[in-house]
């Protein structure tokens, strides 16, 4: 059984937000919901400070604090190590949102239009709304699931496929010969805030 993980190469990422857009398109996330986000910031000290993009998503933690606090058992970990929400079990208490230190979870009560001032949903939005409600649901917690269904079809997660800089690499962490395992080893992949103790499965290759 593979154990999926991701490597994000910060040397390559130039902050184009293609991953965010691809995720929105693939998962039909409503306004305000970003399963794949790109945080813009800077690193280094003057005069060597540079702008840096930091793409984040659900870290698919090995020890997910979101799952620990879920009272209903809606949040689960698949055999492949992907953390998912079973929408028919979630009561929408939002405790998992408070428990995720990476801010990876969202819950929306209804699909509101992207357009302001109470304009009706456009036909595309109607389509997205329906697809979202079928897949993720309203009134429940939602999060990135590493595009489980796409992986099942032999494809990569949408964000990985869309990244023009090939800054995102997806694969099996248990296979020592997979690209992710080799990169993590060779370039000393780091995880965000290891002190949280969540053991993320998304690794970063740091800018030099």
């Amino acid at each position, binding site marked *: 059984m593979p154990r999926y993980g991701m490597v994000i190469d*910060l040397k390559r990422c130039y902050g184009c937000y293609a991953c965010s857009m691809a995720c929105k398109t693939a998962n039909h996330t409503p*306004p*305000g919901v*970003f399963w794949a*986000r*790109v*945080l*813009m*910031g*800077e*690193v280094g000290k003057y005069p060597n400070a540079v*702008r*840096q993009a*930091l793409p*984040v998503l659900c870290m698919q933690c090995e020890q997910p*604090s979101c*799952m*620990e*606090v*879920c*009272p*209903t*058992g*809606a949040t689960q970990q698949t055999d492949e190590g992907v953390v998912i929400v079973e929408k028919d*079990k*979630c*009561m*929408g*208490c*939002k*405790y998992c*949102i*408070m*428990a*995720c*230190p*990476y*801010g990876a979870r969202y*819950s929306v*009560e209804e699909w509101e239009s*992207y*357009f*302001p*001032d109470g304009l009706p949903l456009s036909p595309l939005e109607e389509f997205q709304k329906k697809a979202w409600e079928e897949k993720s649901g*309203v*009134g*429940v*917690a939602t999060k990135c699931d590493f595009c489980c269904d796409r992986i099942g079809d032999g494809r990569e997660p949408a964000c990985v496929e869309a990244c023009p800089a090939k800054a995102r690499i997806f694969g099996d962490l248990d296979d020592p010969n997979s690209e992710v395992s080799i990169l993590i080893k060779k370039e000393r992949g*780091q*995880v*965000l*805030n*290891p002190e*949280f103790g*969540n053991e993320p499965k998304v690794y*970063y290759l*740091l*800018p030099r």
Partner: protein
Amino acid sequence: MDPKVNGQLQHDWSWLIAAYLFLGGVGGGAYTIGAINSFMGEELGLSTTVALWIAFPALLVGTMFLIADLGSPSRAVLAAMKPKTSWIARGTLIISTFMVLSFLHLVLHQFVAVDQSVLNVIAIAGIVFAIGTMAYTGILLGASKGIPFWRTGIVPALFVISALVTGHFALMLGIAVFGDIAETSAMLRVMALEAAVLVAIEVLAILFFLQAAFRQPDPRESAERILRKRMFVIGYFILGLAAPLVLMLVAYRAMAGDGAGVVTILGLGAVLGLIGGLILRQAVLICGALPTLNMAGFEFRRIHRPKEPKPGIGMLPPS
């Protein structure tokens, strides 16, 4: 919308959850005091009766606030499926048991003639679960890994003290409203002094809480925010703590004589204290910020950008 993380505030829990935590605290606090009083002799009987009439309804209404906050309330029955790891599941069990006990206590105390020893057994079990309920409302927040402000370890203690304070105020209000002032003024006078002591302890607890938050960078961000909130400084600290403290002491002194005229002062102090308890929970909730993200050798500083996107293609300018 600005993506989450790095100091951004949580916005998923607000008034409904604050009201739930508050009413759970009021119910637990009032019950604890009333049930303890039931062991203290006949003359405190009224306080037990009033406490029982406060506890169960407060818990019931509080639970309704929680259910109203759920995204999928129809699945609320699943709330206690994982008590091994989840504090909401544990809390559901604790509060449910406490609700049953407080309801039973109320019914047996008011409407059925049972032996005092039966009531005593229920009272002892009830006190245990009332304390559990008060502590749970703080532990629930303390167990949230995503909000460092709630994790400094002080929130449970702060909420227990605030629960006792608000429960005590609710009890005083009930006694003042439903009791005969000529008979209750002596009791109310003692309660005013007790309230003053409890509020003084809460003042220490809140200072301790803020001080603990200021010591670490992530909770500090939230602590700075809470101190900038007028709702917290004026609504809670001045009107919800300092004013009741003064009013209770004034009432205590003034009630040395006959005391009937000071009931208004007591009532005002109690109402302010109760509102303060609700504001405290709301402020602690909405000032909860997400932690800063970092890796070894990678100090990432977020560039803060204006919140509102500029009107552009597909965006109508605000009218």
